[in-house]
């Protein structure tokens, strides 16, 4: 129960959530709801593991995972953007399809084959900073550092670049964007693809770095759903997404660690003596997700949270009175 260790592990596991959440943010900023994160992540995790097993190169595995996520996302893009179908239904079915494909192809994979993983490194100098050093810069996977870099980049991209401005316009007021010659369809396809890349990356981060191996649907264990909650919780902002992801990562670890010791704060540890309490603890992140999703579907709250105004609404040019 060392807080430094819990936080350090929190940043590591939180990186998975961070990648998936960032992906969700990009897609939803363009106005396409993403309930398929879990499916794309699982497919990514399986692809990464399987490609790494056969090539021996985890970087190839990572790349393949991202591509797999990206390709799968295009089903969602086609159904919702071209065919104007309901984004919730399509997103949910994407999870089923992704999970299905991953489980079928993952069937023959060994449970936890010995594969080469994405390396872990410590950053010289930074690692010596008290508290911050051990938590953020000591013995973390390279992917964790990539996470650090992606957050400010995503933030800069969304708020301070021309394509980022177009992205926001398409998610807020697609008819306005369209009337100024921004291709709403292409923009949405592109960011759904980006979301697929990020989800694949999130999946690969699990199987190649954070909890290496392939354990069927337990590999992702519903983290895609938590990421969906985090997208809303972050109010579609990359910096808040980072805070949320690391916090949740740390909580996941805390829930495990708190059941270990017999004594807690000088008292009999109730979580040790009563395993049912532990089960409830493990449930909390999922309960949180349900809560945030319900909140996020309540339109007044949606407005207050700053949801992209056109989120979930198919765009059809020339339709009046929407």
């Amino acid at each position, binding site marked *: 129960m060392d807080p430094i260790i819990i936080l350090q592990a929190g940043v590591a596991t939180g990186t998975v959530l961070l990648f998936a959440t960032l992906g969700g943010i990009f897609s939803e900023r363009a106005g396409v709801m993403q309930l398929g994160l879990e499916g794309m992540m699982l497919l990514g995790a399986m692809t990464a593991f399987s490609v790494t097993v056969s090539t021996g190169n985890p970087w190839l595995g990572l790349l393949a995972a991202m591509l797999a996520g990206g390709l799968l996302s295009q089903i969602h893009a086609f159904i919702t953007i071209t065919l104007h179908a309901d984004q919730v239904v399509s997103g949910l079915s994407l999870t089923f399809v992704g999970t299905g494909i991953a489980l079928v192809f993952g069937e023959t994979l060994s449970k936890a084959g010995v594969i080469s993983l994405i390396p872990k490194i410590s950053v010289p100098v930074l690692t010596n900073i008290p508290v911050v050093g051990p938590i953020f810069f000591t013995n973390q996977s390279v992917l964790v550092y990539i996470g650090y870099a992606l957050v400010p980049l995503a933030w800069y991209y969304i708020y301070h670049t021309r394509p980022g401005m177009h992205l926001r316009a398409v998610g*807020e007021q697609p008819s306005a*964007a369209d009337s100024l010659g921004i291709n709403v369809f292409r923009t949405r396809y592109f960011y759904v693809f980006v979301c697929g890349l990020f989800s694949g990356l999130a999946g690969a981060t699990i199987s190649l770095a954070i909890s290496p191996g392939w354990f069927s649907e337990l590999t992702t264990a519903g983290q895609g759903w938590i990421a969906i909650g985090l997208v809303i919780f972050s109010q579609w902002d990359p910096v808040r997404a980072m805070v949320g992801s690391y916090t949740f990562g740390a909580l996941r670890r805390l829930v495990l660690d708190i059941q270990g010791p017999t004594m807690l704060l000088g008292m009999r540890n109730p979580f040790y003596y009563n395993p049912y309490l532990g089960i409830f603890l493990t449930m909390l992140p999922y309960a949180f997700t349900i809560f945030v999703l319900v909140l996020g579907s309540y339109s007044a709250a949606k407005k207050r949270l700053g949801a992209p105004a056109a989120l979930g609404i198919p765009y059809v040019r*020339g339709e009046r009175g929407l």
Partner: protein
Amino acid sequence: MSDHRPVHENVEEVVQMLGITKQFPGVLANDNVDFTLRKGEIHALLGENGAGKSTLMNILTGLYKQDSGTITINGVRRSFASPSQAIAVGIGMVHQHFMLVPTQTVTENVLLGLDKPGFHLNLSKYDKAIQNLGEQMGLPIDPANKVWQLSVGEQQRVELIKVLYRGAEILILDEPTAVLAPVEIESFFATLRRMTALGKSIVFISHKLNEVLQIADRVTVMRRGKVTAAGVSPAGMTVRDLAKLMVGREVAFDIHKPPLTPGEIVLDTDGVECINDKGLPALRGVNIQVRKNEIVGLAGVAGNGQRELAEVITGLRKCAKGKIILAGDEVTNQDPRSFINHGISHIPEDRHHVGSAPNLSLADNLIMKSYSHSPIAPGWTINNKAVDKNATDLRQEYDIASPTIKTPVRLLSGGNLQKVILAREISGQPAVMVAMQPTRGLDVGAIEGVQKLLLKQREAGAGILLVSEELEELLALSDRIYVIYDGKIMGEVFDNDVEKIGLMMTGTPLEKINEMRGVENA
């Protein structure tokens, strides 16, 4: 009042649309339409609601594709696959419904879709350029503001700046003055004149005929998709002439309001207070009464609590303090259904979202208040025969133009949608009617129809609260007028004293005016 320039022959034509035809499901929106625009002119495009004006202009800007017909811009045949191609040859449109991104700043809205700035957005640098352009054209604006913070008039300026910044030489303005206050319209016209002086050409769509006479060099009139007057000069024309061209018959502009003695009080509010969507106080102790057989006007500049008052009275908004009494019963903070059962009916400002369900059919929209009882629903189920009969009858009675009773109402023109709402609200024999901007955006014929319906209700015994920013309309229809300012009633006017109303609209309470006048007279 107008400064018409002579119409020259052989002047340069920047736009030639020939034989444009556009068919929508069930509607021939444009039927072999010819339209030309000359360099440096303001060309007014007139027509009833649903005549096809917006459709024609949407074709010119590449938003819709015509079924047949040709477009020539500056002598070159063009066919636009998308708005960006039209923008590229200098055509810019300000749409009837604004095309702005509320969460972005003015500058961002202006820069959308352009390929400069490159990758990095250096907004502060562009802020300056946009502010300068605005000042040059008489369109002052703070470019760093977010669009949702702006008034409607300011949003309009943003739309214009957007078009000008793209170097548009041909400007299409679809009902730009519908949302402007009278003072704003004057400066808006000055801006238009400044633009034509710079050689820009303007298509101006409006339903306000006196504006057209004031500003237009030429007029084209459409009716049911066809052109009925092509590029005629309005010199020597009157509002009546234009109206006749548009509607195809004489329009009665004078309103016949028989004197009636108001009956008992049907609506009474007692110290009503409420907050608006942003959580700020919107009403601060409002007391008003409406009696049987009268139309009571509520005058005020937009955003002074009119909408909130209408919502509180119809049960759509919680009342923080005070009482609402309908026909003698207190109904404060009960649900809207209870307000309806007490005989309230509501013609909301927002026809598309509050007043109707855009994707539902005409028939479904017409039963929204009567769906729960006989004959529509005698038992547990809806009687579809009764629904259809109700729709067919009302469609005939209120002369609603729609292809079928199953047509989704979002496809109806503004005037026809308003008729649907009126038909639904009036058919329940209301005791109290709250009508908010009931004629906004409607053509002269439709306005006449709506006003007649309101007067008929007054005779039938309803008490009507009419909320409008059109002072003329209020003066013509109301028996007396309340003026609202900053959520407070400034006073009540019985004698149509426009000067008094104007002072009260800007925040001077009636007692103060009487005091001042007393001093003057003494």
